């Protein structure tokens, strides 16, 4: 398993949400790698070391968070990577994702930051 222990992965299709979240995490001292859909993120995961945490949106074009998470759970190498979900939907929508935590938009950044600090 990988060694980018301080790298946080952000998977979010909405450009500004993605940008600002990445920027804020960087300001908190984390390395951030951001993707705009599940397919790009999954590609990266397959060719690189595992991040300490994946912050995953559900509804995205090309490959949704649900599909990406299902692919991760099928892959022994990827299934142990901690995942938190950030969604505009109600939390039950994330029930099948085996996530550490589910955050609802608009995001409570302090709560998310606590989880990021715990894992990274």
């Amino acid at each position, binding site marked *: 398993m990988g060694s980018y222990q301080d790298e946080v992965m952000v998977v979010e299709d909405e*450009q500004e949400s993605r940008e600002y979240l990445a920027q804020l995490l960087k300001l908190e001292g984390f390395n951030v790698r951001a993707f705009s859909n599940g397919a790009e993120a999954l590609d990266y995961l397959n060719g690189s070391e595992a991040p300490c945490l994946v912050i995953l949106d559900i509804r995205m074009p090309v490959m949704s968070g649900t599909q990406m998470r299902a692919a991760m759970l099928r892959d022994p190498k990827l299934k142990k990577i901690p995942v938190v979900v950030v969604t505009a939907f109600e939390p039950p929508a994330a029930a099948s994702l085996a996530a550490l935590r589910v955050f609802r*938009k608009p995001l409570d950044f302090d709560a998310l930051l606590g989880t990021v600090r715990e894992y990274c």
Partner: protein
Amino acid sequence: MGNGGQEKPLSSGDIGSLAAAIVESSQETIVCTNALGIITLWNPAAEKMFGYPAYEALGQSIRLIVPRDLHREEDDLLGRLSRGETVESFETVRWDMSGRRLEVLISASPLRNAAGSLVGVSRIMREIGAVKRDGALLHAIVASSEDAIVSKTLDGIITSWNPGAEHMFGYTAEEAIGQSIRIIIPPELQAEEDYILGQIRHGRRIQHFETVRQAKDGHRIDISLSISPTKDRAGVVNGAAKIARDITGRTRAQSLLSAIVASSDDAIISKSLDGTITSWNSAAERMFGYSASQAIGQSIRMIVPPELQSEEDHVLDQLRRGEKVDHYETVRAAKDGHRINVSLTISPIRDAAGRIVGASKIARDITDQIKLAGEREAAMDKLSETLAGRDEFIAIAAHELRNPLNVLNLLWRLMNRSVADATAIDPTLLDRARRQLAYVSSLVDRLLDMTRIRSGTFDLYLEKFNLSELIGEIADRFSIDSQSRIVLEVDPHIDGTWDRIRIDQVITNLVTNAIKFGRKKPITVRASRTSDDAIVMVQDQGIGIAAENLERIFERFERAEVRSDSEGLGMGLWITKQIVRAHGGMVVVDTELGKGSTFTVRLPLETTPEAVEWVRTKTK
């Protein structure tokens, strides 16, 4: 009497032997005495009546059979007859050998010699005790009857009037007897009496003749009359006995019942136990199309559909057991074959002895009721569908509002951080915050648009403007930090009449979608015009739309299925389509999966209020 020729008159001897034969064989008791009251003739009927054989009676005094207290009666009889007086038959009492008193009617005649002097008396006696006893019973019955019992002569003069008659007609016996029976016949029915008397004179009875009579105070009484001729002892009709029963209550109940049956909206039918129709009201005529005359006598099965014939067997079985069938919902067939949903209530009809002889059947047409229930169900289904749609819509709307709020939240966090770190706030952050606020506002507007369009209160504010300029403004708005470059190929002279804010919304929507799904590749916006229409095309080189999703992208909002691959079109395209259609235009999409989509909007250059109205009527 051996050679009694017909041409030869009977000799006195012949007459004597003829008389002896008659006396001998007569059913009537015949007793003769001489002028002194000594019995000289005692026929077999007398032997039977009084118990004394002739050989004992003959030669004895007539007092043999006369009770002691009546001895004078015989003396008087002989006295009167010897004086040449006539004596009518009279009722009296005699006694027999055992001392039993017999009530008898005696007709006494003198027996005279050729010189005309009295030589004896013949007595014909008839026992009347039985008649008298029956008479007393009859009298008691007549006196206590609630029916009016009246007798009258053949001239219609009242000869008796019982308490029942007093009560019914209000005249006392004293007032009525001797009057004409016509006092109780209403003026318009006087002819009835002529008919009745005619029947009576011919010895005919009249039974259960229903008519109306009038009481002393003038009120009318419905009665059922039975009239029998009365006869005298000789069997000659001498009057009539009349029994009148007050049926006012019965006729009232009957006429009420028949009025109800006649005017009922429910079909009311009666049938015998073998299913033969015995009555058929007018509602049945209307409901099933058979007239009463067509239906009565037919089998009830004619209104039972072929596939339900076994029902009738079941119903008849139940009726034979005396059970009622209540509110049984089934189907019957009318004469023209159409089916009627009915609710049946079937009750056994019993005769006076309590035996079940048939059934009454009330059929209510519940076709409308069933139709209403169906409509209600459909309305309920539509309502739940609407409610489910509304829930879905709220979920989508919440989703769409949360994203820009999330951006604003993160932006605030970034600016706050800048302030805390005492670094300069990037001015573009403030601009971005403004745009996100504008976006949230437009989402709220869209929510309201949805509501307005759906409720039919969607109005266009038409003005003349240049579409090319509007497209330029929209492209400028997107140029700041858009991930995709926007290429414009626009004819600068597209002027027309539209709702500017709505058309802005349409193009903004299409460009937003193109950017969202355009994979950061350039977006081309083309605008041109024909003689009648403006044509705007927004083309991306993005992911395209799968064929199976094409049909629903213009729906009110796509399904909130989190599992599905997210196209993220939201309610924007539905509103886009509604706005374009409201202008009398159309929007189409041309797409290839993996290569991109082109949305083409065609708008008439001049939108007239009539066109708007026409479209609205068509789309509602």
